């Protein structure tokens, strides 16, 4: 029984890592006022790039870096469309998703289907800590990327809420007119946040193809990109809450099939992340709660100086 729970929790944490990366990225993007619905496509491209680069160079780290760069590039395209061209951000994000899914599937199917990755990112147990009963194997017996995701979450939370840089980002998302009046360059902040968001999402995709299931399969993102969008809201735009949210959503995913013997259909469990998001969004949007929820007010609206 303990072993079951342990394996469940482990599985949950592993699924949650790519989710956490992408969510952290989108939190920064949305906090600055840009909504990026291209995460699914960016993640797919990240998975593809990591896989192909690792295969080509024999070096996993290079693969991961390549995926991060690709993600950043796609984030830049979205930023350019949304900020410089003032395009409709919803539509731009959707286009990027389609593009990312299409290209990754195209190249993936032609070259990489069925090709296994000869390398694999090793699990690195942290000495002493991983021997603590129960908690040890759960928290300290993972691969480097999972550790990275947790460290990043803490760091990004600190930056966002405890430093001036974070204040600037939040100000830009909340009231770009006031921020501009104070002398902050709204455009640059948004570009940076969107590109960083893309980079982290690409990183999440890399995890999928290099650690989670070392192979490339078209469709392996399986909606994780969209769940990350939902998770951003569910976590109420806080990196710390994102950790728990990712673990929860990851847990729900891992739970899908494990509840089957109990007679609960996996598909119904699979709807829970999406249902949760709607409920949380509804509660969060109501008047007073909105303040506490910290949804950036200018989300999705292009900022144009001087234009009303």
């Amino acid at each position, binding site marked *: 029984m303990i072993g079951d729970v342990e394996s469940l929790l482990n599985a949950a944490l592993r699924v949650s890592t790519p989710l956490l990366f992408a969510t952290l990225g989108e939190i920064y993007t949305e906090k600055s006022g840009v909504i990026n619905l291209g995460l699914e496509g960016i993640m797919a491209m990240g998975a593809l790039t990591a896989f192909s680069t690792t295969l080509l160079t024999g070096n996993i780290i290079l693969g991961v870096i390549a995926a991060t760069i690709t993600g950043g590039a796609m984030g830049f395209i979205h930023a350019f469309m949304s900020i410089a061209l003032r395009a409709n951000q919803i539509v731009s994000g959707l286009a990027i998703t389609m593009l990312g899914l299409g290209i990754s599937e195209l190249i993936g199917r032609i070259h990489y289907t069925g090709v296994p990755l000869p390398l694999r990112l090793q699990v690195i147990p942290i000495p002493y800590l991983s021997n603590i009963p129960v908690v040890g194997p759960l928290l300290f017996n993972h691969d480097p990327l999972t550790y990275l995701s947790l460290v990043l979450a803490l760091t990004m939370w600190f930056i966002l809420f405890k430093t001036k840089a974070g204040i600037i980002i939040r100000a830009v998302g909340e009231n770009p007119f006031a*921020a501009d009046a*104070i002398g902050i360059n709204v455009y640059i902040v948004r570009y940076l946040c969107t590109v960083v968001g893309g980079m982290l999402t690409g990183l999440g995709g890399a995890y999928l193809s290099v650690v989670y299931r070392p192979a490339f399969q078209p469709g392996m993102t399986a909606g994780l990109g969209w769940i990350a969008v939902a998770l951003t809201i569910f976590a109420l735009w806080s990196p710390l809450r994102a950790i728990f949210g990712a673990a929860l959503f990851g847990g729900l995913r891992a739970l899908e099939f494990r509840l089957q013997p109990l007679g609960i259909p996996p598909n119904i469990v699979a709807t829970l992340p999406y249902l949760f998001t709607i409920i949380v969004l509804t509660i969060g949007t109501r008047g007073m709660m909105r303040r506490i929820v910290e949804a950036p007010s200018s989300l999705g609206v292009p900022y144009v100086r001087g234009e009303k």
Partner: protein
Amino acid sequence: MENDLLVRMHNITKKFPGVLANDRVNFELRAGEIHALVGENGAGKTTLMNILYGIYQPDDGEIYIRGRRTVIKSPKEAIKLGIGMVHQHFTLISTLTVAENIILGEPSTRLIAPIKDVENRIRRISESYGLKVNPKARVWELSVGERQKVEIIKTLYRGAEILILDEPTSVLTPMEIVELFRVLRRMVNEEKGVVFITHKLDEVLAIGDRATVLRRGRVVGTVDVSKTCREELAEMMIGRKVVANQYDKKSIVGSTILEIENLCVNDDKGLEAVKNVSLQISKGEILGIAGVAGNGQRELAEAVAGLRRVKHGRIVLDGEEITNIGVKKVIEKGVAYIPEDRISMGIVSDLNIAENIILRKYRYKPYSNNLFLNFKFINSFSAELIDKFNIVTSSINTPVKLLSGGNIQKLILARELSGNPKLIVAVNPTAGLDIGATDYVRRKLIEMRNNGKAILLVSEDLEEVISLSDRIVVMYGGRITGILRPEDVSIEKIGLLMTGGGSEN
């Protein structure tokens, strides 16, 4: 002290398209003084201070800071020179804390800096000036008065020696105003200088050391507050321009058509904006509401037009009660509304002229039959109105966003006035229009009046109110402070009523 000039603005001229905002203005601020900058809306006070703060560049003239000639190209430079400004509309981010807002845009704080130091410094400043505020509080939790304190602390945090406050008391309660004055006194006792922009004369008398009065972009004079009085200031502010009856008014004033009884209406923030107002308007009469913006006039007009809920009281049109019956029914009952905000409320900018003309009446015959719009009628009617109202355009299908401001207003007039309304409510109908359009609008209103319509005119343009109205109601602080006939208007009297003094009812 005479030689301790913090600021000297000399011969400042600033032009905007269509208006000369500052015309060779001279202004000085000494160390240790509170200098009130007085004038009506549009007199040029805010523009002048925006120039000092680096938001605008003067077309002509020089600025001397502490004796040195300086060019101030941006607010950042102004801040470096020790100038701080608290605007009418706060630039605070409501979801952030006080401390976070204060260090935002503060160049000296490093990008990754811990907040503790900032909070301590804020506490020190707030204690030394009596500006009590909790650095950890989130701005949305604060009252307006507290937010203003944050704005002031923001300027002090950056080392401001020269503080500009733009209409600071318009959002404060009487208690908070007293507190503010105390704070300002403490500041100038330390040889700082304060510029206090206001239109409220009793405040000038209460707190000012000197006062400079602006009218229509020009300096009328600079006086020592201890040596002047309210009447003198009012006269300087409003001027002795004779506003005789320029329009041909037939003397037909008929029966009462609109009765407002004990009306109480809230503003957008939930505060009471109209406090127990009672009025009557007769057929063939223009009732003008004078007063500086923000004293409840807009809310009153919206309530009459059905666009704002009435908390207490009644509105009766032609014997029928129309309180809170909703905009649609109010339109049906024959109330026309010319909104203050032409662009975002008065028209739909993406639609064309014909489609905008039917905005309020599209659901009635002959504009439509059953389900469909009757374009034949709509088009011919629109062409007729374009002709009648002299709207300059190439066709009825032109999208309205291409029209000039004057033509847009004519379109709105054409729409509202052509339906044979019983009552016309107009708010700032000539704001932003050129002389020709302004004259046209005013003549049209007189024409409606002469045809027996009742008009409720709300305007910040005092000259307009005096020349058009049959009776003038002055509002201040949500209440009626006086009802006058234009013949009985003396500039001093109306100035006093508008600025809170000498209330008579």
